[in-house]
């Protein structure tokens, strides 16, 4: 909207359709979707609509994770004031879980999410789906399913935003050092 950066940022809603298409074949019985707060939850809610027939047919359940209590930078940064309760209203044991996140970066959120999930039970498998992989991972973790690969510099910050009309968009913020 403001100063368009040189990187071309795709339309989040279009990426979401791609993500839904890629996810479709993974939706089997005994699969559950888990959105990571907050962007992952927005995406999941839209995926629940886009994939509604399959989800109903296969009886796919869903939940929400807020990984604040499992983050590795808690000692430095403390708790964000807007943490939300995690809600996993299904049996995690032996489920095939698809974690949904907005922008995959360092892998630390995924690590925290996996640790939290294991406190609910022992899943059969965990798959990570992200709207965008922006590169820069710091752990041996990568998403199996992404709608777009957008390599970014560490001074850039890509965020999923929920607009007042309930559409989603991606915003690139340059946190250039002064």
């Amino acid at each position: 909207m403001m100063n368009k950066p040189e990187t071309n940022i795709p339309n989040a809603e279009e990426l979401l359709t791609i993500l839904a298409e890629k996810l479709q074949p993974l939706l089997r019985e005994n699969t559950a979707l888990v959105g990571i707060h907050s962007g992952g939850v927005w995406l999941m809610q839209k995926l629940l609509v886009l994939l509604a027939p399959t989800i109903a047919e296969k009886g796919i359940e869903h939940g929400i994770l807020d990984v604040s209590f499992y983050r590795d930078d808690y000692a430095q940064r403390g708790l964000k004031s807007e943490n939300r309760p995690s809600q996993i209203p299904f049996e995690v044991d032996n489920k095939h879980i698809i974690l949904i996140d907005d922008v995959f970066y360092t892998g630390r959120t995924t690590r925290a999410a996996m640790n939290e999930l294991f406190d609910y039970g022992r899943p059969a498998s965990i798959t990570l789906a992200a709207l965008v992989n922006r590169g820069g991972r710091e752990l041996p973790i990568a998403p199996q399913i992404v709608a777009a690969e957008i390599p970014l510099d560490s001074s850039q910050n890509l965020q999923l935003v929920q607009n007042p009309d309930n559409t989603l968009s991606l915003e690139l913020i340059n946190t250039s050092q002064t």
Partner: protein
Amino acid sequence: MNNPQLDTDGRLRHLLSIEGLPKKILNQILDTAESFVGVAEREVKKVPLLRGKTVCNLFFENSTRTRTTFEIAAKRLSADVISLNVGTSSQSKGETILDTVDNLIAMHADMFVVRHSQSGAAHFIAKHVPDHIHVINAGDGRHSHPTQGLLDLFTIRKYKPDLHNLRVAIVGDVLHSRVARSEIHALTTLGVPEVRVIAPKTLLPAQVEKLGVHVFHDMKAGLKDVDVVMMLRLQNERMNGAMLPSAQEYFKTYGLTQEKLSLAKPDAIVLHPGPMNRGVEIDSSVADGAQSVILPQVTYGIAIRMAVMAILAGGQGSNQASSQGSGS
């Protein structure tokens, strides 16, 4: 502004009393506790937030219930917990409070939960400890018991989320209660429009009206149309003085019975900090009745104490370091 509870960035550093906590921090604690309620319902009732930290329960005065809830809260956060009944150990050998604290700091304690019969004990320790150590007041004399006040607030908010439309009655020994004053303060801060106190004159502090409450000496008038009834514990030791005639007499006038409770709104809830004197301030049929939220208070007490410890122990680094590595 020199508030020992907050650091220079306005973040919570110690929890000593509810007075002096801005609305923002009160809400932060209540909201965080919301997330901890669910933790107790999981297969693994623990989160790793305080892994490797040592929480030291320093109880100069006995209180099994409070100590147990703090212990459970710290353990659910994965902290190591040491509970000391100091009254029965070093203190009786003549060691001062600060010597005891210094020794525990030398053993690398990270947080102190302090219970003392004297007002101001937790403040005194908080002033003494180095920056990285946090102090929680678990009750000091008649002065304050902030986590009890917070868990009451949390319970009220859980059952009656619209605080801006509530009528709350606090009933009983307001004079000796260490939570009543904090509670009145917090309820007002969070926007509760009408707080009443119902008690005999002898159990009310002087000029209690100045706290912004409506004073009643008659249960029937005071309970009319309230949404929340907060019973206070009547301390048996007060019975002997000139303050009260007898337990039976007190129960007749100020004890909460179904009959008196029926004057409140039909969906009113009843709170009590425990331990209860059944048949003195509250009738068993009310304590065990459908409107009682006394046991949920205990459950939420753990979540509140977890929230306070989690907020205190987190964020030791600078605020500015947050933009980096915050991504997924």
